[in-house]
């Protein structure tokens, strides 16, 4: 009990004495644990909004479509006939349709976009009756827009738009479970209409929109006796036996597939957050390791004093471990709370579905995992220094004998041929290779995030052309862009967190380097180096690893984006964006480390050298 009190007292006093460092360490851990929490709680929430919408709109178990070949008659009986047998197929309990569907071009408020116009009656349908969120249902001269599409275009009920040049009044906005929120690209038959938005008009209007180039198609909604068997139903009634590989009429889509597509956005977010949380944990580990390493230089005398007054090696190690584990625990709790609060923002289903994802499940297991990672990272970073401190002899600890720096003979010989700042910088860096590695890794991880973000940015506006592989990407991009924009925002949040942690790390590393090089800097100035040369040397010791890390971050970022994008279409950012990232990162590191470096280079030579004697 007595030991516990001593350890607690020492931990609290030291944390209070080093408030600034403690605060930065807490920030590092909170960022990492909050991101990890987000990644974990996003798991399993993807299907909730789709189920709510499906229930509210009497969503179909299977949706079947048929389109005539291009150049055929505007209303092709054969296409319609291919759907008719499905109505009487085994297991079907109800149906609506077939409804006529036509591709058209919508123009509104400066936008031009492709749409699929579904011809509906004015009476409510028993299967797939879209739920209005604004205005009223279709009527002659009027149309209803699917909500995510309307939001992307900025159209509201009461606005006027044109379809193939004819004016229509937007009578309402509605949601449906019959198509994925990302658009109805799966229905397209024309490469000129990649990923069109969905609208509902009267049957007459839909039929009138068909052209020779884009003949009328048909859509049938089916309810099954056993909804869970929808996928096998779709396979049975698809020529070739697999609805996923269908090439001819009819095209069947089970509700599970739509649900899966709707969950893709959150799944992508989850993937990004999980990858990011591990990257952030890595940065947090680096922060703690650098901080502990830097602190140990200061704490070695404290360790000696503890031992001199009777503290055992176990007590010494215990104090160090307890200090950082305590910080990790507090930060993990804060990170859990922050992640839990932020999760609904990322689990929001978007405008295409009803309701919300609900409260993300923060289970005991998730909490345990987050706390475990935080404590594990902290313990891993402090373990070796704690053991080393415990083993240090009392006398040498009291004498504050600094750990011998590494000698890199080749680097020292090479640096003799360089200008003075580079000579000093390289030799400083060579003294602590692990710190240099931590610096480079930190920057590499951060730049990876930035590069991934740039790739995501470059991909905005490029639709996923999927099977068609062609089309006019610049023309109709609303549905895809809105989704990519959200992933882009997630990547931006992650990158900001990475940059924040990297900034904390850069400052920690610079402080540790300056502290470690205090005597050498003073001696170097004592034998003739100017403040500016020493400052430039200290700065070079930060910037050189940062440059290496930034260059390594480019392939890292490409890999990160590929992992997050999961094989989706990706654009390539211009080369100058990547060059700018490298240069700005290096400049950022130089800027962030300027203050500690300048302070280190300007400290009084006499005071430092006298302190060494004393």
């Amino acid at each position: 009990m007595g030991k516990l009190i001593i350890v607690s007292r020492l931990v609290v006093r030291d944390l209070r004495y080093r408030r600034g460092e403690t605060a930065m360490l807490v920030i590092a851990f909170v960022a990492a644990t909050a991101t990890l929490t987000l990644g974990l709680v996003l798991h399993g929430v993807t299907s909730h909004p789709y189920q709510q919408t499906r229930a509210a709109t009497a969503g179909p178990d299977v949706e079947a479509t048929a389109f005539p070949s291009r150049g055929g008659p505007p209303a092709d009986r054969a296409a319609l006939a291919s759907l008719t047998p499905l109505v009487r197929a085994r297991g079907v309990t109800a149906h609506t349709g077939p409804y006529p569907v036509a591709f058209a071009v919508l123009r509104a408020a400066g936008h031009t976009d492709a749409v699929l116009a579904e011809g509906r009656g004015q009476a409510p349908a028993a299967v797939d009756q879209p739920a209005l969120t604004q205005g009223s249902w279709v009527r002659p001269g009027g149309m209803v827009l699917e909500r995510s599409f309307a939001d992307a275009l900025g159209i509201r009920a009461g606005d006027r738009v044109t379809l193939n040049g004819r004016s229509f009044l937007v009578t309402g906005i509605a949601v449906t479970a019959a198509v994925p929120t990302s658009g109805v690209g799966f229905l397209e038959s024309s490469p000129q209409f990649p990923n069109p938005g969905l609208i509902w008009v009267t049957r007459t209007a839909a039929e009138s929109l068909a052209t020779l180039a884009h003949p009328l198609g048909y859509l049938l909604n089916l309810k099954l006796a056993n909804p869970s068997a929808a996928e096998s139903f779709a396979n049975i009634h698809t020529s070739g036996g697999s609805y996923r590989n269908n090439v001819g009429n009819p095209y069947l889509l089970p509700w599970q597939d739509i649900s899966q597509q709707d969950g893709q956005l959150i799944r992508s977010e989850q993937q990004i957050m999980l990858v990011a949380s591990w990257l952030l944990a890595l940065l947090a580990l680096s922060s703690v390791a650098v901080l502990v390493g830097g602190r140990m230089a200061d704490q070695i005398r404290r360790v000696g004093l503890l031992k001199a007054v009777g503290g055992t090696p176990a007590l010494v190690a215990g104090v160090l471990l307890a200090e950082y584990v305590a910080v990790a625990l507090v930060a993990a709790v804060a990170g859990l709370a922050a992640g839990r609060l932020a999760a609904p923002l990322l689990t929001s289903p978007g405008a295409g579905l009803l309701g919300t994802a609900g409260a993300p499940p923060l289970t005991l297991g998730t909490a345990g995992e987050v706390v475990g990672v935080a404590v594990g990272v902290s313990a891993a970073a402090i373990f070796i220094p704690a053991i080393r401190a415990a083993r240090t002899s009392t006398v040498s600890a009291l004498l504050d004998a600094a750990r011998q720096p590494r000698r890199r003979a080749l680097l020292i010989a090479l640096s003799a041929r360089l200008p003075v700042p580079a000579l000093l910088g390289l030799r400083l860096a060579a003294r602590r290779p692990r710190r240099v590695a931590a610096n480079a890794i930190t920057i590499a991880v951060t730049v990876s995030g930035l590069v991934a973000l740039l790739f995501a940015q470059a991909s905005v506006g490029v639709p996923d052309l999927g099977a068609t592989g062609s089309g006019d990407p610049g023309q109709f991009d609303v549905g895809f862009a809105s989704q990519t924009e959200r992933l882009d925002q997630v990547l931006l949040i992650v990158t900001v967190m990475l940059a924040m942690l990297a900034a904390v790390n850069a400052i920690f590393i610079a402080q540790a380097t300056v502290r470690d090089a205090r005597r050498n800097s003073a001696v170097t100035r004592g034998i003739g180096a100017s403040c500016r040369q020493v400052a430039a040397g200290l700065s070079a010791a930060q910037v050189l690893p940062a440059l290496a890390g930034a260059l390594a971050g480019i392939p890292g970022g490409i890999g990160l984006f590929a992992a997050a994008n999961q094989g989706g279409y990706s654009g390539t950012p211009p080369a100058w964006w990547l060059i700018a990232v490298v240069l700005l990162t290096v400049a950022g590191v130089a800027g962030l480390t300027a203050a500690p470096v300048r302070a280190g280079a300007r400290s009084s030579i006499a005071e430092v050298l006298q302190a060494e004697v004393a």
Partner: protein
Amino acid sequence: MSATGNESMLRTRGLRKEYGKEASLVRAVDCVDLDVPAGETLAVMGPSGCGKSTLLHLLGGLDRPSAGEIWLAGERIDQMSERGMAALRRDAVGFVFQAFHLMDELTAVENVELPSLLAGRSPRAARRRARDLLEQVGLADRARHLPSQLSGGQRQRVAIARALANSPLIVLADEPTGNLDSEATLDVLQLFDSLHQTGQTLVIVTHDSRIAATADRLISMRDGAFVDDTRLTGGTVGNLSALAGLDG
């Protein structure tokens, strides 16, 4: 920068260094006037805390005075820019510290060549000069040793070689034998003696009267001020070991 004839190599007028303010004001160096002719070996003695190390730091441009003037080889140095001070420390002054202050990760020869590299000499010339100096201090066979592999006396000899790297006008030594045993002390004193023979101006701060006895002149300090200035007759030309009382 050079001093010839009777001109002082080093001169101070009204030199002061103060720490703190008002009630807690401490005058580490208090109105010191000093003239050190070229080629002289001057010893400054006094009890711990009397301000002798602070004086040395001021003379060598490691610290700036609160008031007064410092002239080195006819050039006023107390008002120099930081850059000018750095050049002064590099080219005109050689420092020898009690704690040696060698770079732990550099070998003896790498430590000695560092001031030459900082002065912009070619790596080859810097290395040649460093080897010559190590031979001069009797450590040619220890050139590739790290400081941790050298004895205290050897480390101090390396530090002296480093101080001479850029052929300074003056060598300032702060308790150069403070961390050494008798044998190593004798080695260092012999080195200073040979420097004196070559006409090198030396200022040695010490609290050891045996070391001070080897100088041309001895100044005693107390509470930041000079209290005695004595010209010694024995100097470094006599029996060094006997003078220093180190011959057993």
